[in-house]
């Protein structure tokens, strides 16, 4: 019997390559683990066991025919905002409760081409709007380290499934931290690639100038393999950029001697959990001992990022979500009189409270009389935030910060105060505004045994240096070896 508890993508790939197990056996073990644990964890919205076993059989046949590859036969799972043909794709919303994806997202198709096996669809905050996965219309996902805590969000199902050994890897999306913050809360690795690095074709849109797709896995190498498989120009997404995709996994082993790491003072603030600060500072010292050169730097407009982000993201969301009109797909609520009433009732019944709140906020920011003061102002502040990073990257190769100011908070703790929930994104959102790549990885545990995340931010399209610093830190420490206990 295969035990997924002690298996990474790269270990599983090696075992498959040696012919010690088949993908069908590995997939069966993952499905059994989901069956045994998801009743409590609630990470999956849809488990596609038959599809997974058929894909596993295909992967085994490809291997028998001489093919090889880091993801060939590896079971993964996909956030429910990403389309998988023929499978229900709800984006965590009631308004898409019966939506069967008519086509594959480009990232879904690319993972399949690489031979990955899709176990099913993962829970998330509705339309990826949230920091705790509590905004899902369907279920609340628990943090595998402590069932009374949130897994982070919005890709909380993705992070929980990987941390709880249900899946070896997962795809998430990140608009303001939705890959990195849950990766931090669940003690795994997750990377938001540079804006334009990965296609969003077939991904349910939240805020189009910020959204990116990226992988979550137990290790840096696992993320490198997955990003290599999904990155690249796609004619289906006009913002995807035509640049060669490096072999990220092959470049990891490089030394960090002489790597210049900036430590921004604005990311070590009053009110943050002391254990988080201590763990991240200890991480800085580890990289120094490996030969990296660290320097205090300043990103002076950091304190304006939350306001700029939530104005831009909600404005774009209010426009993107106008498509849910109850006509061509999705829910429709009958109304006694007229088309407008049908729209209003459909959207009232189909959207949850946070989605309505963000649509309202965005509609307000874009409405006559407020556009200049809110939306345009936020876009100008976005320029200032971007320039802060450009200035630091003139002298630094990467920037190192905490991923979040606290470890995973209690389920229900922030649901009644939306602004408090928004403030939990304080260390991740600037990266999206500037379009940069950033990775979160475990760097310690707090007094309650909850994982702490360290964030490494890179220059645009310089995922290599982000991965290199992360891999060097991971190899020098043992945080990634500490795993969730239990069955």
């Amino acid at each position, binding site marked *: 019997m295969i035990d997924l508890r002690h298996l990474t993508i790269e270990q599983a790939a090696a075992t498959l390559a040696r012919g010690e197990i088949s993908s069908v056996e590995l997939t069966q073990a993952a499905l059994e683990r989901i069956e045994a644990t998801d009743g409590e964890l609630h990470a999956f919205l849809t488990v596609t066991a038959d599809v997974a076993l058929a894909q596993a059989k295909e992967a085994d046949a490809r291997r028998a025919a001489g093919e090889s590859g880091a993801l060939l036969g590896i079971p993964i799972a996909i956030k429910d905002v990403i389309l998988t043909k023929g499978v229900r794709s709800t984006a965590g919303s009631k308004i898409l409760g019966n939506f069967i994806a008519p086509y594959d997202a480009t990232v879904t198709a690319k993972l399949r081409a690489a031979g990955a096996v899709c176990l099913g669809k993962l829970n998330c905050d509705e339309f990826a709007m949230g920091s705790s996965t509590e905004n899902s219309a369907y279920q609340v996902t628990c943090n595998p380290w402590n069932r009374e805590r949130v897994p982070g969000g919005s890709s909380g199902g993705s992070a929980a499934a990987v941390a709880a050994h249900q899946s070896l890897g997962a795809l998430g999306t990140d608009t303001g931290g939705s890959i990195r913050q849950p990766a931090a809360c669940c003690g795994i690795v997750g990377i938001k690639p540079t804006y334009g690095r990965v296609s969003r074709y077939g991904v349910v849109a939240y805020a189009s100038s910020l959204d990116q797709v990226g992988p979550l896995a137990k290790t840096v190498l696992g993320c490198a393999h997955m990003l290599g498989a999904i990155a690249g120009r796609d004619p289906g997404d006009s913002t995807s950029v035509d640049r060669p995709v490096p072999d990220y996994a092959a470049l990891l082993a490089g030394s960090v001697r002489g790597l210049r790491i900036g430590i921004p003072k604005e990311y070590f603030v009053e009110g943050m959990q002391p254990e988080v600060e201590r763990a991240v500072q200890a991480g800085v010292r580890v990289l120094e001992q490996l030969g990296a050169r660290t320097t205090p730097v300043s990103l002076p407009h950091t304190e304006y990022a939350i306001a700029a982000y939530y104005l831009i993201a909600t404005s774009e969301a209010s426009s993107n979500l106008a498509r849910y009109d109850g006509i061509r797909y999705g829910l429709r609520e009958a109304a006694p009189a007229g088309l407008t009433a049908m729209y209003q009732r459909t959207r009232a019944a189909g959207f949850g409270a946070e989605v309505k709140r963000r649509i309202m906020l965005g509609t307000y920011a874009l409405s006559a009389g407020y556009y200049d003061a809110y939306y345009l102002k936020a876009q100008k502040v*976005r320029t200032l935030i971007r320039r802060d990073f450009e200035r630091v990257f003139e002298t630094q190769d990467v920037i190192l910060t905490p991923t979040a100011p606290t470890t995973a908070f209690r389920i229900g703790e922030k649901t009644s105060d939306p602004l408090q929930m928004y403030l939990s994104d304080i260390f991740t959102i600037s990266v999206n505004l500037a379009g940069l790549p950033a990775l979160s990885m475990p760097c310690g545990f707090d007094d309650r045994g909850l994982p702490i995340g360290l964030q490494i931010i890179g220059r645009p399209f310089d995922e290599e240096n982000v991965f290199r610093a992360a891999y060097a830190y991971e190899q020098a420490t043992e945080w990634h070896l500490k795993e969730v206990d239990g069955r």
Partner: protein
Amino acid sequence: MALSREEVRHIALLARLELSPQEEATFTEQLAHILEHFEKLAALNTDAVEPTAQVVDTPSDREDVVTNPPAPEELRSNAPARDGDFFMVPKIIE
């Protein structure tokens, strides 16, 4: 930043959202609280700053041709109401 109940109703109409009286009250309070936090942007002088709408260069033009394989049945099968090849909608013209 004070936000009136009437403004919230107007925004809800623009957004095509039917709100219950309870939702109206909650949103009036919450949005005002959030907007108050956002007021801090006003303190920054941005007169000489260009706005950033998008961080990648303007996408290049492409030919306007259909490249998706046709899948009319898959697309129509998600419709909440249909009649054969047609999407059914409420009557909008008397």
